[in-house]
Each structure stands twice: as structure tokens, then as C-alpha cells.
């Protein structure tokens, strides 16, 4: 099947403006601006069933329709913070198929009446930002950005903005704070960005991959998009496959493909002939799944992954083989979240501190079975009490690993954990 998002894999040089245009580039943006009302664009995206690819899976068209029309100006912000361990899809889109992403930003901006859009990239993507700046300049020179687009009243400018190394800035309200020049700490929600966003104005925040879907939907219609994926999870998704597989990488598949297809057909199976042990479907934030046959045959879509006790999230599938112990895995995820907690609320700040303390004791071989229980306890105490989802994410691998792989912990603390 031809790619919809990773089109550079079928069309070499699609990162060149003329090649992109020859292959239908900007036709969707032109169609929207010259033949559709903004609300019609939003309706089409709603009808496509596209859901946010940044993690939460919120319906994209619905989000756009929430923009407060009594408060102007409106903004669009593309979330290119891509910091979830195991996620590396947005980078490939921006590096290899940049115009399609930028066209998606432009269509979103038209749909919500924004004349200014920002792409917020993680600071490490310094070269990607410079590259996007070049592409934006080419679009301006060719009349796809700027004033009076396609001979209409509509005008639009897109700017890049670099973060500086803080995972929390991927959370949309922390991102907006950061873009305003402040410390990247989440805001209390509600209000949500479509009513109170950048500079207090209505703002759509969408993930890079989400936006890269939009040109296809507008060019071909919602029904065409729905031919991919499942009834409840339509469309295609990029799965970032990492960990102990032979061929890690990005794979664009319809939603509903199984873990087995991804890991064995595309990923070439487990390295060095080892056995698969666990799957983390949503990066370090995942609830860990025991990789049995039932799990492997689970369709990767928003509903089914939930049915096996996890979440699809941003579909960053980390595969762990049986040479690793899950207490070590948990030590890694706790280290990550302890480092990235922004410190604004107590349960997350203190909880991560204590979890790290306990897991370090366990990893040094000085833990007791009570420590494992204490760890589990601290994690459960944090759940439901944190200001943003990071606090929740930090506990997912902990509680599910202790529950689903108790023998690994028991082995480490030299006792029987029940």
C-alpha cells in the first residue's frame, strides 16, 4: 500500500517544492481556501474520524470546533516536542515530508481563522527547525504562505520556535507557557486551549502527525480516509518500533494492525533469537503488557489496546525480550520521570523522588519485599492526584510491572512477593 504520511518512501525528493506540487501538493490547501468555508473544513475533518496522534487521541475536528468565536485572534500551534521515549515519527515526517506537514498546519489555520501559526520543536531538533524555516521561506516565495493567498483575503504566516530540553513542554499547556517565554509548567485545566491558549487567546494545539493527515482528508474526502483503519479508529498511524527487534523503525500501518504484524512482519522479530517478554505500546508512559499470544494478536487501535490493559498513546512500541528484568525497566522509566517532573505539584514531585529512592535501593540489591510493596504503594498514591498527566504516566510502568511480572522483583529482593 502506498504511504499517506511517509510518502517520501514512495516519492523520492518530495521534500522539494516542485516535486511536492507535481504530486498534488497544496491542492488541498487551495481547495479549502478557495472553495470551502472554514467550518466546512472542520466538518470534513470531524467526519473523517481523525483522532489526535500526540497521545490522548482526542477527535481533531471536534477540537477545532471548540474554538471560541467571540475571542480573537486565533492561533494554531503544532506540537513537535516529540519527547516520549520511544517516539521518533514526527522527526521523520518533518525531515523527509515537510511540506505535507506544513500544508496540514496551513489547512488547520484556515479552518479556525488563524493568521499566525507556530511550530514548537524540542530544542534538540535545532537542525530540523532550520530546515523547516527554509521550507517555509520556499512556500512564501511560491505564494503558498503570506498575504492574499490564492487571490483571497486569507493570509497566513508560520513560524518555528525551539524548546530547550524539557519533556513536560510536550504537554500542551506547558508548551504554551514555554512559547510565551515562561517556565514550561502546565496550566490548570479547564480552560482548555481552544478557549484560553497562546497569550490567552483561542488556540488549537495538534501533534505533527495529526496535521500531516489533514491534506489527504481535504483532498480526498472523509470517506476516502475512512477506508483505512477500523470503524472507531479510522485512518493510518505511524508506529515507532524500538527495543529488542531486528528492524526498529517507523512503520505506517492502518489502525487495527496487530502487534504480531508490526513486531514480526515489519520489525523482523526479536533480536538474537531471544523470546519476546513485554510490550510497552505507548513509550515510557505505557502500562506494560505481557507479550503472550493474546496480546500479540491484539489489533493496535484506541479501543483494543485498552482492552488488554494499556493505551495506544502515541504508538511508540517498545519491545522487551526475556534477557531483561522488569525491575530494571521500571528503574529506567522512574529515572526518566523523576528527571522530567516539572515540580509544580507535590504528588508528582515527591512521588517520583521516593520511587527513585526505592527502586535504586532495590537495584543495588539492598531492597526487601516490603520495598516492592512500598514502591507499588507510592505509585498508587500518586494516581489521580497530579496536576497533569505526567504524574500519572510515571506510575504506569511501575504498577503494571509489579502486578504482571512479580517474579522479576521477587528475584531482586531475594524474597517472595505476594
Amino acid at each position, binding site marked *: 500500500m502506498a504511504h499517506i504520511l511517509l510518502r517520501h518512501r514512495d516519492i523520492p525528493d518530495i521534500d522539494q517544492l516542485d516535486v511536492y506540487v507535481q504530486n498534488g501538493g497544496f491542492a488541498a490547501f487551495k481547495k479549502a481556501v478557495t472553495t470551502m468555508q472554514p467550518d466546512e473544513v472542520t466538518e470534513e475533518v470531524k467526519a473523517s474520524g481523525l483522532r489526535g496522534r500526540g497521545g490522548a487521541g482526542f477527535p481533531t475536528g471536534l477540537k477545532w470546533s471548540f474554538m471560541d468565536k467571540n475571542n480573537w485572534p486565533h492561533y494554531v500551534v503544532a506540537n513537535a516536542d516529540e519527547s516520549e*521515549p*520511544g517516539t521518533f515519527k514526527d522527526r521523520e515526517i518533518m525531515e523527509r515530508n515537510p511540506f505535507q506537514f506544513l500544508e496540514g498546519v496551513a489547512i488547520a489555520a484556515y479552518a479556525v481563522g488563524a493568521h499566525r501559526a507556530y511550530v514548537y520543536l524540542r530544542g*534538540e531538533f535545532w537542525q530540523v527547525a532550520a530546515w523547516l524555516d527554509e521550507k517555509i521561506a520556499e512556500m512564501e516565495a511560491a505564494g503558498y504562505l503570506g498575504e492574499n493567498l490564492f487571490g483571497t483575503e486569507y493570509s497566513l504566516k508560520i513560524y518555528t520556535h*525551539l524548546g*530547550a530540553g524539557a519533556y513536560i513542554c510536550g504537554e500542551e499547556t506547558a508548551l504554551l507557557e514555554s512559547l510565551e*517565554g515562561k517556565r514550561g509548567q502546565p496550566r490548570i485545566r479547564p480552560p482548555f486551549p481552544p478557549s484560553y491558549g497562546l497569550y490567552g487567546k483561542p488556540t488549537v494545539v495538534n501533534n505533527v502527525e495529526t496535521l500531516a493527515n489533514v491534506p489527504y482528508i481535504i483532498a480526498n474526502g472523509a470517506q476516502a480516509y475512512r477506508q483505512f483503519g477500523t470503524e472507531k479508529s479510522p485512518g493510518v498511524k505511524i508506529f515507532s518500533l524500538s*527495543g529488542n527487534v531486528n528492524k526498529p523503525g517507523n512503520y505506517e500501518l492502518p489502525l487495527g494492525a496487530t502487534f504480531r504484524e508490526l513486531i514480526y512482519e515489519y520489525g523482523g522479530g526479536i533480536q538474537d533469537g531471544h523470546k519476546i517478554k513485554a510490550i510497552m505500546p505507548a513509550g515510557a508512559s505505557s502500562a506494560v503488557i505481557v507479550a503472550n499470544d493474546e496480546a500479540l494478536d491484539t489489533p493496535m487501535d484506541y479501543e483494543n489496546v485498552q482492552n488488554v490493559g494499556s493505551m495506544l498513546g502515541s504508538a511508540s512500541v517498545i519491545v522487551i525480550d526475556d534477557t531483561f528484568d522488569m525491575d530494571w525497566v521500571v528503574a529506567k522509566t522512574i529515572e526518566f520521570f523523576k528527571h522530567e517532573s516539572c515540580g509544580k505539584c507535590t504528588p508528582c514531585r515527591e512521588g517520583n523522588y521516593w520511587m527513585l529512592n526505592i527502586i535504586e535501593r532495590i537495584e543495588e540489591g539492598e531492597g526487601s519485599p516490603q520495598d516492592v510493596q512500598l514502591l507499588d504503594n507510592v505509585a498508587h498514591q500518586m494516581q489521580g492526584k497530579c496536576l497533569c498527566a505526567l504524574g500519572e504516566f510515571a506510575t504506569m510502568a511501575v504498577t503494571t510491572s509489579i502486578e504482571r511480572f512479580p517474579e522479576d522483583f521477587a528475584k531482586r529482593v531475594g524474597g517472595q512477593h505476594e
Partner: protein
Amino acid sequence: MSLKEKYSQEIEQILAKYPPEHKRSAVMPLIYMAQREGGYVTKEEMAEIAAIVGITETEVASLIGFYTLFHDKKEGIYRLQICTDLPCALRGADRFLRDVCDHLGIQPGETTPDGLFTVEEVKCLAACDHAPVMQVQSPQGIEYHEQLTLDMTIGLLDALRQAEEAE
């Protein structure tokens, strides 16, 4: 020299990206600009940035403290930032970090005696399919190096050292 004297044009370009009434948004790009040459931001530069965007010096300092890519201290000219996060660690990143440190004779977080290299352990760099991954932060910007072996890395460090000596 003040930032304004050195970079007046670039400062204008940065400010032009944001609505005039929201100059504060320019603070992060200005910090990047200030630390480009020396690898860190001085007190005087913080004060100047604060004045440009209309916030206090303390606020600028607090941003530098909050974001890990901003620095207020001189360290090695080349910050070797090696990812040891879970997906990379599953593919041998911890071992790679140790090998690079052993080669340089320092521990993670330390700087080589000649002041050239600082090794830092960092979190996921969004290149997990190409582990081991190292990012080099230097006056030239940030550069990714992927699917590294120890030999490749030694070659890279030697080349950087030679370029530095040639200057």
C-alpha cells in the same frame, strides 16, 4: 561587547517572529543566541536579554535553570550527550556510555582536563531506532550522531580535537 552590538540584526529577526505586544516569547531564542559562542550565558547577557524582552534578570536566570539545554557555566566546548533512556538502553546504550567515558578517562558529568569534552547522560533524543545515539552540543549548534560504534566515536572525537587545535 553587548549582545545588541554583536547581533543587532539577529535580535530584530527574532523579535519579528512574535506579536510586538508579546516580546517575552523571544526570550528562549535570545538565550540560544547568547550562549552560541561560549556555550553559556553570562550575568551581563542575562541582564541584557531581560531588558530586551521586558522581564527581570531573575526570570531569565530561572528559565536557564529550568531548561536543560541552557547553561550558565562554562563546561567543555563539546557537550557529548549520550542517550541512555529505555529504548536505547535495550540496545546497549549504557555500555556505550561507559566505553566513551573510559576512552576519555572521565565519568559522566565530568569534563576532560583540556576543557574540550563534557560527557552527559541524557534522555530520549527521538532517534531510538538508531541506538546508540549521541548528540553533540557545541558553538556550531546541535548535531546528531546515530548508530555509533566506539571506533566511530573515537574517530569523531579525534576530528573535533584536531579542528580545535588547528584554530
